[in-house]
């Protein structure tokens, strides 16, 4: 599904990613771990198409299509979804209106009919229950005045509605208490199927107790220095990131 080769990326002239290789197949969950500043969020944002990052080398293919040629909205319409580390507040735009607009733009781009307001409402009511999202959040402006946990749940809720093929969760666990973490993880797990895939970016092993990955990659100084299965996450948790810094990465 996704094939990243020798990816180099800069922000404000500073090189952050220094040659990433990663392949993600349908049905897989990949965890990307690493200390602060290793480039985890950069990778997530480059995949989503954030304009501030310049890709200087390498390729990203989504089903043999060059992802780097696509705008953020085109990527979303092809099934890429980024759950933001810091979800953005948008005053004056209701959550429901925002989501329906997004869903219909994606549906239109994929040759599907737009969903009318009644069908949409019925569908999202169902999905909200799953994410344990408060009904009144639907009619409030996007993320405005939401608690940290509500914002993260709202990201997962959007994911549940838009049903992406490849979801990238950028430190969705940061700042969540254990109950919210469980809700978020349940949301992800209930969406997992053999056709979609997840990249879970996290600093801590904790989230991976709930979202069990097929593969774990350790990112350090802009490169994947170690890949393995879920046991690697436990090993990292035990030994800490200093273990990498002492040269054990390679």
């Amino acid at each position, binding site marked *: 599904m996704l094939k990243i080769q020798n990816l180099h990326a800069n922000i404000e002239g500073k090189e952050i990613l220094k040659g990433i290789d990663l392949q993600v197949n349908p049905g897989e969950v990949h965890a990307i771990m690493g200390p602060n500043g290793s480039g985890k969020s950069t990778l997530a944002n480059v995949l989503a*198409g954030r304009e501030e990052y310049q890709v200087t080398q390498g390729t990203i293919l989504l089903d043999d299509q060059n992802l780097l040629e696509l705008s*953020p909205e085109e990527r*979303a319409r092809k099934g890429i*979804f*980024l759950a933001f580390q810091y979800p*953005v507040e948008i005053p*004056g735009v209701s959550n429901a209106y925002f989501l329906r*607009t997004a869903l219909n733009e*994606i549906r239109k781009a994929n040759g599907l009919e737009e969903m009318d307001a009644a069908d949409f409402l019925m569908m999202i009511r169902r999905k909200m229950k799953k994410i344990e999202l408060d009904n009144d959040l639907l009619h409030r402006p996007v993320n405005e005045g939401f608690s940290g946990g509500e914002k993260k749940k709202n990201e997962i809720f959007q994911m549940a509605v838009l049903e992406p093929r490849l979801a990238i969760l950028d430190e969705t666990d940061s700042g969540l208490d254990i109950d919210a973490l469980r809700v978020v993880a349940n949301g992800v797990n209930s969406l997992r199927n053999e056709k979609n895939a997840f990249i879970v970016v996290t600093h801590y092993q904790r989230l991976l107790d709930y979202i069990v990955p097929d593969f774990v990659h350790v990112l350090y100084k802009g490169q994947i220095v170690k890949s393995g299965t879920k046991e690697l996450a436990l090993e990292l948790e035990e030994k800490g990131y200093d273990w990498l810094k002492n040269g054990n990465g390679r």
Partner: protein
Amino acid sequence: MDTKNIIEHFSNLYAGQIDSGKIGLAAIRDEAFARFSALGFPKPKDEEWRFTDISPLLDIPFTQASDVDESGILAQSLDSFWIPDVDGPKIVVANGVLSKGLSQRLNNLPFKISSVYDAKQAKVIAEFVKNSPAADSNGFTALNTSLMRDALFLDVPANTNVREPVQILFLSSGSEKPQAIFPRLIVRIGRNSRMTLIESYASRHESIYFVNGVSDIHIEENASLHHVRLQADSASAFHIGHSFVEQKQDSRYQSCSISIGSRISRHHISAILDGSGAETRLDGLYLGKGEQLLDNHTLIDHKAAHCQSHELYRGVLADKARGVFSGKILVERNAQKTDAIQNNNGLLLSEEARIDSKPQLEIYADDVRCTHGATVGQLDDEALFYLKSRGIGHNTAKGILIYAFAEEALKNIESKPIRTYVDGILNRFFREVNT
């Protein structure tokens, strides 16, 4: 033209008035013209006009607009100016003169519509004109008083609920020669009465003209007026409008002033809260593009205790457009327990657009709550990326954010048909600036 020439130019117009005797205001008009001659038009160094350069207006030798030939205009040709699904009267004031021929549904109304040509009302109207702050506020309002060709008077008696919104279209006919038009509106809402009023300014033809209008609004005890003012004049027109609002005890005035037309426009509202428990809400939205200049000046004068005023103006400016906002809240010595909030926020869609904002609080009472805030910014890139990352296209995403910003100033328009109509104006503006 320099000041001397301008005054001479308008003197000629004044002397040449075809109807000066007819409307029974000769003495008032003479006095106002003397006032205009003394004041002239505002100069760039006047603090109140510092950001608004009116010199392009002064270079044009305007003539007094002539009567509109009603038979030459089909009532249907004005359809696009009326708000659909509003059943109230549709009043046309063409080139400043009430046009009964083009107006619709003037009969069987719960209030009176009259003009200076109605002998029975002429005296009352003259009294309002005489006592209006327009007589000597500044050169523009003095000139309106001396050169207006009619005054439209809406008189709502006490204890009357005017259910259907009343629409007034101030139509400028437009012509080859640049014309000056001096619309005058007087509204009185009697005790315990209420009304919704839409006051709009437009032209059927793109042309150069100058609207210099004055509205005098009187809201009696416990009465309420919802007022939407829509300035949608031609792109090459000039529009200077003054609204003088006077509120009695426990009255409510809710205004939304929308400016989208004209090359240079200014709307000044002053609301005088002259009885305790009065409430004023001034909202405004200005949408500019090209090289437009849109100026809004407001003055809220808290004379009495226990009054509230809320004010929110929002501006969206594209290209090289300029916005000016000046809002003054004056709390007089006796106006204890005043609660006043003022906000002005601007959204700039280009590097060359600009807003000058000047909030002023002048407080002489000690037990009051007054706040003000002003911001000017550009579209939030983070929010834009967030919307796009969910599949929403760039232009749609921009439109959503601009709409959300602007909409805040329209929230208090309670009538759904009016709101839908205004939304349509907003959407047209976005389409024009979003290409």
